[in-house]
């Protein structure tokens, strides 16, 4: 990228908000995925107008642009794999309006999820999507990746909480969509930006739906002699008309690792641990949790524990949250998958994953947002052992195929990014993929916005460092 373009970028966002030094570029070469590639510059726009200017410039001079929020994508969405500039939206971080009567909030896309929650909390509201990264991830990133989270079973995923967007198209035009459009009858194609992974446009503002904070919450844990039974219990609870906010399953490998790590006194001989949380009105949560206890026992739970106070609740959650860190005690690294299957297929999927692990002699620790059929099998390996890593890759592919056979999908909340590009053809027909490509080409004729993600355009030169 030549100095003329740099000069123009500096003119748009100001000299301080363009980084070009070698080491600064190293700092924006990665996200939370294993992929790494250096950008040629990093810019920090402060307004929609600046974003639009940059996109126009990029089209004129044909350089690539990769939008970035907090850089917590697990599938490589924020990695500038073909170079170009990284556009960090972290400076567009204002909460512009909170409208309690309409139950909406208008935010710039760089607002951190947690900051919005903190602003809403005293008003008795929340923004329902709560991905694990919510303390640092931005709303724009949540929307672009269609973030899930542990409350997904009751409140759904991010796209169900977005009412309007302001988007800068890859060619630089600014469009107001959904409830920001000022028209409630005209076509509203806002939906295509949900989970578009920053490839169809740059989301600059989001009008989000607010959800009333529940009055009360009850948390419990039940242990089962098999993953199967835990999975069946999940389906049974929901088919009886109770929709908990959380239904998390951990397998024995994880339970043991966490217990070694934190000494919580977890039931180490249990094959599966199910963490359940219900929320709602004060007067109904107790009877709901009682019904769930009955169902668990009916399904053969070996034991259960209800949290009697907030401290006990915290300790039940601690076990769930410490999973990732605790696995480091077994093997130095892991590859985590994100397949999702219809809820009733959970027991079968658990079984299949276990047998795939055995087939390739690798340890797979299973945890799942079971309520919405979203599994996170952690395939453990040692980066120094190339051969083991290869087996992990083979096992992953087999897991994908198994999930698709069960009418599931490749990824529930982490995104395709670069990580799962090569598996897209397993999941979609040629026509399906061609239609997706067509839409991308219509909106981004010069292929400059976040190329190499979701769909495979250009040379296959992806490089990982795992």
């Amino acid at each position, binding site marked *: 990228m030549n100095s003329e373009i740099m000069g123009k970028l500096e003119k748009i966002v100001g000299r301080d908000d363009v*980084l070009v*030094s*070698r*080491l*600064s570029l*190293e*700092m*924006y070469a*990665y*996200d*939370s995925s294993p992929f790494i590639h250096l950008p040629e510059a990093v810019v*920090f726009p402060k307004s929609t107008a600046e974003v639009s200017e940059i996109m126009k410039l990029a089209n004129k001079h044909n350089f690539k642009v990769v939008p970035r929020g*907090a*850089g*917590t994508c697990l599938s490589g969405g924020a990695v500038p794999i073909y170079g170009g500039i990284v556009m960090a939206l*972290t*400076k567009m971080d204002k909460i512009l309006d909170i409208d309690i009567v309409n139950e909406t909030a208008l935010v710039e896309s760089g607002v*951190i999820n*947690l900051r919005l929650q903190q602003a809403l909390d005293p008003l008795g509201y929340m923004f329902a999507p709560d991905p694990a*990264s919510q*303390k*640092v991830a931005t709303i724009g990133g949540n929307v672009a990746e269609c973030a899930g989270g542990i409350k997904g079973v009751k409140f759904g995923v991010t796209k169900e909480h977005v009412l309007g967007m302001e988007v800068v198209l890859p060619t630089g035009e600014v469009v107001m969509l959904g409830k920001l459009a000022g028209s409630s009858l005209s076509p509203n194609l806002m939906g295509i930006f949900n989970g578009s992974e920053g490839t169809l446009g740059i989301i600059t503002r989001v009008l989000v739906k607010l959800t009333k904070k529940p009055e009360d919450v009850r948390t419990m844990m039940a242990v089962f002699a098999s993953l199967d039974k835990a999975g069946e219990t999940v389906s049974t609870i929901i088919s009886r008309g109770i929709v908990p906010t959380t239904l998390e399953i951990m397998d024995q490998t994880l339970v043991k690792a966490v217990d070694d790590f934190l000494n919580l006194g977890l039931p180490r001989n249990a094959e599966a641990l199910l963490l359940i949380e219900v929320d709602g009105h004060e007067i109904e949560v107790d009877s709901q949790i009682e019904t769930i206890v009955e169902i668990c026992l009916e399904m053969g739970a070996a034991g259960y524990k209800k949290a009697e106070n907030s401290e006990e609740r915290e300790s039940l959650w601690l076990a769930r*949250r*410490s999973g*990732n*860190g605790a696995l*480091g005690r077994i093997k*130095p*690294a892991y590859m985590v998958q994100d397949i999702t299957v219809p809820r009733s297929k959970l027991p079968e999927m658990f079984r299949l994953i276990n047998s795939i692990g055995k087939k390739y002699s690798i340890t797979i620790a299973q945890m799942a947002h079971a309520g919405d059929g979203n599994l996170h099998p952690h395939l453990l390996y040692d*980066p120094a052992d190339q051969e083991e890593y290869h087996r992990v890759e083979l096992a992953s592919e087999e897991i994908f195929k198994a999930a698709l056979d069960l009418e599931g999908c490749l990824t529930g909340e982490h995104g395709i990014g670069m990580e799962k590009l090569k598996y897209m053809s397993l999941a979609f027909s040629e026509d399906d993929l061609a239609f997706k490509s067509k839409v991308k080409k219509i909106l981004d004729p010069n292929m400059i916005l976040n190329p190499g993600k979701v769909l495979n355009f250009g040379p296959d030169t992806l490089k990982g460092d795992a």
Partner: protein
Amino acid sequence: MMTKVLKCNRCGFCQDVCPTYSVSKREYDVARGRIRLARLVTEGSYQWGTYQELEDHIKSCLLCKACVANCPSTVLTDQIMMEARAKINAAKGFSTFHKLVYRGMLSDQRKLRRISGLARFYQHSGARKLVQGTRILGIVKKLKRMEAILPDLPQKNFSQQAPAVLKTLVKPKYRIGYYVGCATNAFFSQVAVAVTKVLQHYGCQVYIPEIQCCGGPHQSAGDFEEARRLAKINIDKISELSVDYIVTDCATCGSTIKEYSSLLMNDHEYARKAIHVSSKLVDVNDFILNHFEISNLNPVNIKVSYHDPCHGIRGLKVSREPRRLLKLIPGLELTEMKQADWCCGGAGSYCFTNPQSSEKILDLKIMNFQKTGAGILATSCPACMMQLGYGLKNHAINARVLHPMQILLQAIEVNSNENK
């Protein structure tokens, strides 16, 4: 270092708790970025001591451990940063500032006393005005900044006051070695006086060992060699005492001494001695709260907010104790500020070496304090006290910084004229 660095899977959760990131919003100012830099060097892409930028990013870390406490993969960023600094020192040699202040002053109690004596003379005589008016002080920027941050020094340091304060008790309940750190001794002798008096009030025989700097500042700057030398001297001095506990009022000294054994890991004899020393070491708030019945206190009608020193909450793991102690004082209203456990930006000599970042982090802290409406900002670390005092002065806020022991002493002393 490689193993420690590899543990980072770049989840980025450190962005939430990193004070330097909160003010700059740049990836090189957060643990994930710094660890990435360390990894690039360990993998051979860059060399320590080549890029000034590399050094800046490594040195812009406060070592506040907030990321460590919140890391799902328990990456020890503070240790990695200290080791990285040691590597930079090895490649480039020590900075002038380091040689002058750390090895020159802090490493030698006698020199430190002489220099602080001079500084005191400078502050109290007319010389200050004279110098400030001219440009003599501007020669070294960092020293100039030091000039601004240093609190008004007491007339006498604690070593000079000790003989008058120390009492011999007939039947002491405990025999206490009181570790008076450099900053407490030179800048906050009133804290040391308060600690001594409080301990004596509860029936402790207090001994003041002649120690050296704990070596904490040296470690932070990546000078492990000097830190080990100082640690050994201190271990010997402390081991000579026959006491029940070693009490400290300084979170940094306390947590440094606690970790002597890992610093001296390769020296079996001293590592063993260090474990013994560390088993006796206790934070003064913790000690008082858990060994005595605190009653019959006079009311002290003030509103207090407590700032957690990084080395207190995440080093010594002391944060409830000072609060519980303060709550026992009748009339005292304890109010929590937002982000009470965030670094104040002082971070030892960070306030001198990284003034811009330090100021912004301090502003955040002062703003949070101001919102509580409290008149007293309490904390248990002289380095924090220095930084916070400077912050209050700078923002012209009518409030004072006190160590909990100073407040407790007020509540103990019947004729305290501080009592409103």
